[in-house]
């Protein structure tokens, strides 16, 4: 018996409209001590979808996850699993009745049970027959490539292997929703990178619905169908990894997901039809940038605007059809060689600028003109 049918290798993640959302949060609120840890969150997760909650520590992402798991009860709002109420302020279905899988930051692999006992525990609790348990444990251990270690104790395993045990344990009961609470943060850097891609492949292969919490933006971009960027108990933006990175809804999102160069200026022209504005930058030069529709509607020449540019979108070569008039004049600060690229610290007027470049660039008297990759400049509100 195979864990997945090869024919259906990739499961379509498009939300099915006739099915209820696998998870739905409605105006969820929770105070921890004096702070509003979660302050009004609405979110729907469709079956088969992988949603990542991304934010700095204390943004409420773990609190949200623990409310979904049933370890915390919301003070306001509702949690629905498959269209059935699981928690509100007066009712909380106990965690064991929610049919979830969860991978903990500390792995929480039970040290007194073997790998197979750990993985099979949920099936034992569910009252499955011995033979069936053995079969399913073997299948799920194969899935996470731990087939030969079934008889070992966790203390005999490496961190990465314990991580896989925790994942296998969470998958063994075929949960309707898999929760992952910063599962990779205790692994060393190279293993973490490797596990990211492996987790993503596994998620796609078996089509399990996933809610994943992390503060690591790279992890979020790799693993998510949709990223939910959170800050101070609220959602700042929900979108695909590309949307969140290229068209951040706020300065916070721009700064948290990737490195942001922010250039201030004054609007000289608004083109609502094209969705663009021209901005006279304080550092000199006039640049054209894309902007969110809502912001454009209220924009008018003479108002202030902030342009966001990613370090890799600023170049020394003038493109064929630049979005700028003269190029941005910058002053050299320092340069570091990072192997695949140079990391330059420059200043444009008074604004510090970080640029990633294949070449160290040429500076005359410590000055150079830089060009934005066409269509990369974006106005942040």
């Amino acid at each position, binding site marked *: 018996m195979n864990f997945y049918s090869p024919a259906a290798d990739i499961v379509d993640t498009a939300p099915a409209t006739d099915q209820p959302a696998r998870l739905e949060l409605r105006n969820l609120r929770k105070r921890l001590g004096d702070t509003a840890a979660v302050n009004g969150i609405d979110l729907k997760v469709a079956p088969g979808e992988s949603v990542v909650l991304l934010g700095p520590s204390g943004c409420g992402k773990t609190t949200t996850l623990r409310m979904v798991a049933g370890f915390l009860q919301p003070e306001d709002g509702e949690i629905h699993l498959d269209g059935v109420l699981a928690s509100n302020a007066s009712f909380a*279905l106990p965690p*064991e009745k929610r049919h979830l899988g969860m991978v903990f930051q500390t792995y929480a692999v039970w040290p007194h049970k073997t790998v197979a006992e750990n993985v099979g525990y949920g099936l034992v609790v569910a009252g499955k027959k011995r033979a069936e348990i053995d079969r399913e444990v073997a299948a799920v251990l194969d899935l996470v490539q731990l087939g030969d270690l079934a008889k070992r104790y966790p203390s005999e395993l490496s961190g990465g292997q314990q991580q896989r045990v925790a994942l296998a344990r969470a998958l063994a*009961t075929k949960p309707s929703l898999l929760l992952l609470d910063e599962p990779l943060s205790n692994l060393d850097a190279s293993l973490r990178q490797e596990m990211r891609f492996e987790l993503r492949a596994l998620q796609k292969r078996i089509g399990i619905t996933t809610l994943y919490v992390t503060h690591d933006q790279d992890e979020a971009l790799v693993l998510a169908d949709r990223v939910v960027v959170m800050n101070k108990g609220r959602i700042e933006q929900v979108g695909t990894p590309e949307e969140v990175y290229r068209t951040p809804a706020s300065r916070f999102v721009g700064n948290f997901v990737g490195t942001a160069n922010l250039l201030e200026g004054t609007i000289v022209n608004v083109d609502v039809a094209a969705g663009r504005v021209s901005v006279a930058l304080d550092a000199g030069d006039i640049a054209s940038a894309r902007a969110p529709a809502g912001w454009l509607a209220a924009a008018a020449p003479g108002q202030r605007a902030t342009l966001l540019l990613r370090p890799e979108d600023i170049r020394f070569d003038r493109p064929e059809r630049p979005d700028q008039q003269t190029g941005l004049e910058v002053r050299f600060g320092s340069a570091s060689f990072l192997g695949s690229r140079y990391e330059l610290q420059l200043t444009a007027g008074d604004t510090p600028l970080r640029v990633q470049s294949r070449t160290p660039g040429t500076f005359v008297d410590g000055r150079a003109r830089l060009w934005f990759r066409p269509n990369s400049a974006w106005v942040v509100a």
Partner: protein
Amino acid sequence: MSTAAYAGGSRIAPAGSALLRRLSSIQPVKLLVIGFAVFILLALIAYPLALLIGYSFIDAQGNLTFDTFEKAFNRRGMWQATVNSTVLVAFVTAGACALGIPLAWIVARTDAPGKILVTLAAGISFVIPSFISVVSWIFLAAPNSGYLNKLAIEYLGFAHAPFNIMSFGGLVFIEIIGVYPLVFFAVSAALHNVDASNEQAARVLGAGRLRTTLTITLPLVRPAILSAIILVMLDALSSFGAPAAIGTMANFSVITTKIYDLLKFPPQFNYAAAVAMPIMVFTAVSLLIQRYTIRAENFRTLTGKATSDQITTLGRWRWVAGGFCVFVVFATAVLPIGALLLLSVLSSFGADVTLSNLVTKHYALIFDPDFVARGSIINSLLLALATATVCAGLGLVLGWVVERIKFFGRELITFLVMIAYGFPSIAYAVGILMGYVNLFYGTLTLILIAYAGKLLPIAFVLIRNGIQQLSTDLEEAARISGAGWLRGVRDVTFPLVRGAVGIAWVLVFSLSLRELSMSAILSQADTQVMPTVVIQFIEDGAIELAAALSVVIVTVSLSILGLIRFFSRKKTALVS
């Protein structure tokens, strides 16, 4: 098994069975178990203490009054007993510090020889209850027939016996030997934990060794010293065994022995409760001081390990310090243990120590089925078994509640348990007597209630620490896997804290065996335990029998404590 298993629909109960789902959210088993444990806790600790306070402040007509205090303390000898208790506490505290602090420094920070022996001897002193020390020291230093006195007169040319254990000074000496290990262990542990970098920083800035010790090291271990002093004071104030044994012979009283007298027939509960009140107040104040001042200081980081460059080389003084160590080991462990063993096989106290005078008849009598001692051994073992089991079970549930559930009552539970810890045994026994005498008069159950309430804190603290070290994730992982509360505790929590539970069980068992002050008040003719029989033997002058029974107590205690090694070797609860 296919992808559909994950992509498929819900297995959560449909909305139709809303009532059932609401019921399951209450978690009845959890509520029941926790509720029962809290009920037992209240019955064991809160109820008797409330009675105790009530009796001392409320007269027969139910009015609030201070008359009881006035009458109680106007009884003959009561003020003298209070003064005696105060003097005893002062001398014992000073003596324990004078002995414990230098020893701790020598052991933790110098190259003196014989350091390991000191730790061992302190452990032995700590395990031997003071009423057993009395037996040993009567053999060694009774005014006329004590063997040390005989030696001094015969070989060292003393005209009079130099030692007299049957005196107030003798009592102070025995109490110091019993409690100095508290100071010693606390201070040497603290000294071990002062990180070398603290002292090295001072040395780098130009302070000498002595200056560093005085201005850096000592202030860092001051919280440990203060904590130990408070424990020593409470211990001396509430001590009963040695004062009872020596006081009877030397004709003086302290507060605890007065309380005991007040409970002899006809028992005067309200006076006993009133007399116990000063001890209670002193205890409460001390614990508050400890909680709010010392603890605040204690949060200063004491982490790390003593390293070799913290060891002071004593040079010539090395042998002086070594001599001091050997003397302490000899006087506090070797002599008393040897005396006890010898006395238990000597034909009669006072007889010459020759091979022909060594007999086993005392042990034969101890185990004689028709003699009181055998029954007391069985009672003691039964009680120890029951107490250890009750305390370990209760400690597990309460420890879990306090560590895992965030609610207002958890502070209250901790508070109640710690009150029982600081509470003088003798006063607590009075409360138990008032609360449960009608239900359980003359039964072992009455004594079990007292033991369990008094020893619960030890089990609670140990098991709670075990649970504290256990990441909550481990239990939550069980819940997510579908296990209910009880199942999670059974499959995950208990196996992982088994080591702590085992150690708690062993400690409580061992402490139950040697409990005297509560047993003396609560036991009747049919419910004698080993310690009360030892005291009876001392008072009757059957000191050889007392020694033989004491050897039984010490042997069982030490061998059961050996089980701790077994429990700590298990590699449970290692992973957090």
